[in-house]
């Protein structure tokens, strides 16, 4: 069993860290304060290929696979969780949907510009009445003159306000529902999508989230991702892949929190000695380190399973569940140790604290993750639980 990373991944990590520390770290605080996406830095990141790390080179990607993508998300989150949301929504779900089931022609047309970072993608699944319960979507696509006409409203769409391309799930046959009646499409902004309310958020403020409104948007037949009626399957496969990297992003955030805790404990003096001398603080450091190492093993192994075509869906749920909870715990610990300083708007911990909460929510809330993991395990022993 050889667990060393191939050397190209070391260099890849080195490059990503360089980009994050030089281009994003200096602007992250201001971007959060103003709730503005740092487009200048994003341009540099796109030029270095950061928007297409996992995809094959024939489609403008780096060819680094899920392993490269995990490294990307871990390194981005060490510096800027909001950017992890931008990249995660773009690569992990919007472009990934085209990649997993799109035809060759569709990939050439849409995956390539997304992988190059020339076009930014958004993933349109959630609706007012369909969040974690994704099968309940109402957005409707109706055939008309060989094209499709889409009507409906998607909400909480990451990258919505500035995306050029949208991977959209819509009902094509209400009678069949999620089993054969839902289709995935790629929709261009120019086809007539509208941006609704832009959310004012607690965390990940330097990413943009909005409603995306489809009002008689006409989409060519060629823009169907995969087979008509099987869109739900495409989106679920995509989300499985995305979950692995939510775990990776959480790992980056938790690692950063641990570093901040150790730094603070070493510097701050209470009762005449550094905080680090207190056992209570030592316990926190030891626990957090242990959880991080556990998460690291899990996330990297799952990435390996993806790249080696093993079934990985259940592990992906665990990555998302444990990752987001460990990251939240890590920033809570950091808050506890930093005292009043942790609450200061001028200190980066406050931002990390606000940013961490989202990971427990998006890509399926943690409650849903637990239900699915349990049902999957129970099914193996013959217990079938209907929703």
């Amino acid at each position, binding site marked *: 069993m050889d667990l060393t990373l*191939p*050397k*190209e991944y070391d260099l890849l990590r*080195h490059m990503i860290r360089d980009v994050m520390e030089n281009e994003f770290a200096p602007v992250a605080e201001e971007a959060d304060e103003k709730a503005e996406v740092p487009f200048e830095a994003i341009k540099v990141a796109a030029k270095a*290929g950061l928007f297409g790390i996992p995809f094959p080179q024939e489609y403008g990607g780096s060819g680094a696979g899920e392993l490269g993508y995990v490294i990307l998300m871990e390194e981005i989150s060490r510096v800027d969780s909001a950017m992890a949301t931008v990249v995660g929504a773009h690569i992990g779900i919007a472009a990934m949907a085209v990649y997993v089931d799109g035809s060759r022609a569709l990939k050439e047309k849409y995956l390539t510009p997304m992988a190059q970072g020339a076009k930014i993608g958004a993933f349109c699944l959630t609706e007012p009445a369909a969040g974690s319960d994704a099968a309940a979507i109402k957005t409707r696509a109706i055939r008309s003159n060989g094209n499709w006409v889409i009507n409906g409203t998607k909400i909480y769409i990451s990258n919505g306000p500035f995306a050029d391309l949208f991977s959209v799930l819509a009902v094509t046959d209400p009678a069949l529902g999620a089993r054969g009646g839902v289709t995935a499409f790629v929709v261009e902004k120019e086809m007539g999508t509208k941006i609704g309310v832009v959310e004012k958020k607690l965390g990940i403020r330097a990413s943009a989230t909005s409603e995306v409104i489809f009002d008689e948007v006409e989409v060519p037949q060629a823009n169907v991702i995969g087979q008509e009626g099987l869109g739900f399957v495409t989106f679920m496969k995509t989300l499985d892949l995305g979950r692995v990297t939510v775990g990776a992003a959480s790992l980056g955030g938790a690692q950063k929190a641990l570093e901040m805790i150790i730094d603070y404990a070493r510097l701050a003096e209470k009762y005449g000695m550094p905080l680090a001398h207190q056992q209570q603080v030592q316990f926190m450091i030891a626990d957090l380190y242990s959880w991080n190492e556990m998460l690291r093993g899990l996330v990297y192994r799952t990435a390996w399973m993806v790249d080696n075509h093993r079934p990985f869906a259940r592990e992906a749920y665990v990555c998302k569940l444990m990752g987001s909870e460990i990251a939240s715990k890590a920033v809570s610990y950091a808050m506890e140790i930093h005292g009043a300083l942790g609450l200061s708007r001028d200190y980066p911990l406050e931002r990390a604290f606000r940013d961490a909460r989202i990971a427990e929510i998006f890509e399926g809330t943690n409650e849903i993750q637990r239900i699915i993991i349990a049902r999957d395990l129970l099914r193996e022993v013959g217990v079938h639980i209907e929703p």
Partner: protein
Amino acid sequence: MRIVVCIKQILDPETIKFSRSQQAIDDRLATRIMNPPDRWALDAALRFKEADPSIEVIAMSLGEPGVEDVLREALALGCDRAILLSDAAVVKARAAGLAQIVATAIRRLRNVQLVMTGHMALDTGSGTLGARLAIELGDWPVLMNVDQLRLEGGHITGLQYADEKYYHSSYPLPAVATVLETPQHPRYPHGADIINAYRVRNVEVWSSLALGIDPTTLPAPTTGRQLRVPPARQLGLIVEGTPQEAAQTLVAMLRSRRVI
């Protein structure tokens, strides 16, 4: 024409630790990186290539096989070729002999008009390779510590830094240039080029034998045994004296550490 950029692999000064008991560098935890000033040299060379695609940029390094990693990084950044000079004689060679080996390799390449490298190696703090190579290559002119390099009309021009001032300098090719770091970050490699640098591309390994160098003719290492004495970082030293005396002592101390 061809440009050769000489790059060095060093222990990352940010991660390095010193073992005080053994009077040595504890390199177990240190990562190995490309000498940062060499990145600026590569960047300048690759800018020439962007302006004139007929220019071929060749990265060259020398040492143990592990040095290959910095050459792969150079390939990822956009170099056309990467050459590693590596064998027992090479690994043992020091300043004078090393310049001889590199110069022999450069001559072997033919049509090399410009040799570039960083203004210093951050590990040894020395920056003499450029000047030594210039001699070995047949007394080529050398621009030391330059910024804002340009190639025009068969000349290499730039702002040369020396003793607190910048001077405009221009020399006819072929020439050697040692490049300054600037606050402008050099280019980042593209992710795909990083992957390809390892999976597709090739680092050529040349030995001194293949270059026709007889190791016995190389100058023997010419300095005595080296001892590294890392003084512990002593905080809290108060510089005494009148304001004038204290100021003088302080400036001398900072100079002796090469902080200023």
